[in-house]
């Protein structure tokens, strides 16, 4: 009935070239790395000051310290109080935010490009001269304690907490970024001051700027606001050694009235800088990193167990977790866990068909320009180079490594880096329903909250 030949997909037109945008990368005399990309599609600029002050530097007995410190630095400096700081940048239409994650702390600013000087001045001031007013410390401590209270409402956070403590006991990774009620209540202003003193340092830090900017002018601004920041090395984070496990275990966090179960299956993975990391991205995309992944086609499209399932290798300086995550119906949590285990086993047993590998490989290669559409996207990529100490041509090399990946590579990688028999399964939901379903996947421990 159609006058057009529709039975097979039309062939592509001529390929249009893509090149990673130009950027400039250098180091100030005090060790601070500066990365700048001029992309002028819109009159905006973003900048991020990355500091070696993440939660992986928390002293073991003080989880939450990196997060509390990062949240406090913009609540008052030697020159301005918190409301003046936020009022100054927001009146320009911009924003300034501070945060800590596992790998670092950061001060990020987004402004109209014409206001970049003000934004960088404030970012530098916040990183270098916070005064940690005691009343702000107490206010943010109360806010953090309230967030910790609210994790009972958030099954995904409960799942993360149960996984962290199961995978990484006795290490900084074993807690939530905010720690827990006891440790958050105990942190002192002296702790915060010492953490800032130790880790908010130009050595090991980077300033990354992308947007409608002029690289020489950015360099001048960086020298003006950060060039006289005295250099001294920040201490290295302690090495994280995950727990070893003799058998698979199941942790059920009981939420008796939950309408759904937050399900995780995880084990320790590899550090971000592991030589296999790039090709593990191919393995993961095929397994659970895209809509047409094996896990999603199985759990969602074949069985209807979930709205979506995904897997990932979480990037950390130490061996971050490999995690499979899905919210599933309470009645099918055991069956869904079985299917996840099956998919992990399949990847370890049989080499993938070259067509399936080609689909995954070509997706990763083809989608790359899409992930660089905005100046903020580009900023994120350049920040990765600085954070992990990757070479300038890292992304070109990574794409080449993706293109060269073979079915045998994936089999080797799966056998080396997927370990379903020693994984930890976490299910947050009604224990009475979950325990009988999950007991066949490992010894079940029920946690009541």
């Amino acid at each position, binding site marked *: 009935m159609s006058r057009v030949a*529709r039975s097979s997909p039309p062939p592509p037109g001529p390929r249009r070239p893509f090149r990673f945008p130009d950027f400039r990368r250098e180091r100030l005399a005090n060790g601070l790395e500066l990365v700048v990309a001029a992309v002028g599609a819109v009159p905006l600029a973003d900048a991020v000051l990355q500091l070696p002050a993440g939660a992986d530097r928390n002293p073991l007995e003080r989880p939450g310290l990196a997060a509390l410190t990062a949240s406090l630095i913009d609540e008052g400096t030697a020159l301005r109080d918190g409301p003046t700081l*936020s009022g100054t940048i927001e009146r320009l239409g911009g924003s300034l935010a501070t945060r800590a994650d596992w790998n670092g702390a950061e001060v990020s600013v987004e402004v109209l490009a014409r206001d970049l000087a003000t934004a960088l001045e404030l970012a530098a001031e916040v990183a270098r001269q916070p005064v940690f007013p005691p009343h702000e410390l107490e206010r943010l401590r109360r806010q953090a304690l309230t967030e910790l209270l609210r994790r009972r409402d958030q099954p995904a956070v409960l799942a993360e907490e149960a996984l962290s403590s199961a995978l990484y006991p006795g290490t900084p990774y074993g807690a939530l970024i905010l720690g827990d009620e006891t440790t958050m209540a105990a942190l002192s202003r002296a702790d915060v001051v010492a953490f800032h003193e130790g880790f908010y340092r130009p050595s090991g830090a980077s300033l990354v700027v992308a947007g409608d900017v002029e690289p020489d002018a950015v360099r001048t601004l960086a020298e003006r606001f950060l060039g006289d920041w005295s250099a001294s090395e920040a201490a290295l984070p302690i090495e994280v050694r995950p727990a070893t496990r003799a058998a698979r275990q199941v942790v059920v966090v009981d939420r008796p009235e939950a*309408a759904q179960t937050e399900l995780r299956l995880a084990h320790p993975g590899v550090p971000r800088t592991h030589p296999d990391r790039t090709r593990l991205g191919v393995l993961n995309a095929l397994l659970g990193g895209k809509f*047409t992944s094996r896990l999603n086609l199985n759990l969602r499209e074949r069985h209807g167990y979930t*709205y979506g399932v995904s897997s990932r290798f979480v990037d950390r300086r130490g061996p971050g977790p490999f995690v499979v995550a899905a919210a599933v119906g309470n009645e099918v949590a055991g069956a869904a866990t079985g299917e996840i285990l099956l998919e992990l086993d399949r990847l370890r047993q049989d080499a993938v068909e070259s067509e399936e590998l080609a689909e995954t490989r070509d997706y990763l290669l083809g989608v790359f320009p899409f992930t660089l559409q*905005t100046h903020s996207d580009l900023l994120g990529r350049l920040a990765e180079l600085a954070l992990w100490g990757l070479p300038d041509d890292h992304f070109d090399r990574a794409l080449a490594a993706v293109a060269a990946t073979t079915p045998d590579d994936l089999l080797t990688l799966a056998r080396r880096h997927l370990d379903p028999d020693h994984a930890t399964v976490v299910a947050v939901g009604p224990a009475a329903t979950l325990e009988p379903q999950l007991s066949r996947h490992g010894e079940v421990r029920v946690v009541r909250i």
Partner: protein
Amino acid sequence: MTAAQGFPILRHRLANGLRIVLQPDSRLPLTAVNLWYHVGSADERPGRTGLAHLFEHMLFQGSLNVGTNDHFRHLQRVGGVANGSTWYDRTNYYETVPSEHLDLALWLESDRMGFLLPALDQHKLDTQRDVVMNERRQRVDNQPYGRPYERLFELLVPPGHPYRWPVIGTMDDIASATLEDVRAFFETWYVPNNAVLTLAGDFDPGAALASVERWFGELAPGPRPQRDSFALAPLDAAVAETVEDSVQLPRVYFAFRIPPFGDPEWFASALLANLLADGKSSPLYRDLVWERQLAQEAACYVYPTAQTGFFIAIATARPGVEPAALADALRGHLDRAARPLPAADHERALHRTLVELWEGLETADRRADQLSMYATLFDRPELAWDEPGRYTAVTAEAMAAVAAERLGADRQVTLTVLPRSAQR
């Protein structure tokens, strides 16, 4: 700042009524394809809620020439990114592809616009009903404050108005949708003359238009679907209710009816929402979170809905704070807004809104979606570039007038959510 004068657009209409918008821009070798069907949950009937959204899922289950999971498979194979979404007033489908694969995207979209029904079957529907029920659990039933938020709209919107039920529908209605419902929905709404197709990105307009004509030109139009639309006047008396949920902290919702998206008063309401609550230097944050510490968080926003708009204010209480005290404090801010607010706050809200608009114009997919929206709702895609001007034109007096006439205490729905008694 006048945005986007560097983004020229071209318009066209096929003989079957499909409206085409083209926005060429060659900075990256990508093309965004965006298709709006003018049908959403507001076109459903009670007892059949959630059908528009369930239908959206079915549109990814293959068509005559595209296998069950092959829509995503074809697109991902070439590095494309695809999805769809359903809203009260519309359903959109979109993909961004490397430009050399534009024909692939058009082939896929035209196949499901023209040839969906032969590929529909009961098994696919059963699976997607399960998926959507899990989506509902994940987004609503297993979310703190999820069910109370649906209750808020039952208080705000009268029976008989289609904004009363949630876009995703009720669990019972999702469970009872039949293949016949899905077929009828397709035949009524998924016709070329009820859709807008926008391309934004790196393509040659002449060649692209020829491709569009080739893939979509032969699809038959249907009767232009009719819809009733009515704006809601503000409530004439305050409504208040208290409900419980499995949460740790009490929360207060205020909700109001405002004019529909596109109206000057809607833009004034949207700017006022940003003025009140956007950023740490906003009055709500400064007062409720920072100074008096009554709230853990506070927010204001408006709904960009086509028949009638809504203004929502939310504050979550700190432990130990009485919800009534928080509600009084929040109400105080709306009362003060009935007179012009400080110029510094106005300036912050406008500048932050303009920066957000710039960010929205940076990607081809966002530009395409904006163009489809203005083409669908107003038949004028070029209005997408007028938003900075619309916000800039809002005066302090206009915001005060909105607060006085639309956001008064006597026009307010108040929903207070308390932690379930057992958990207190």
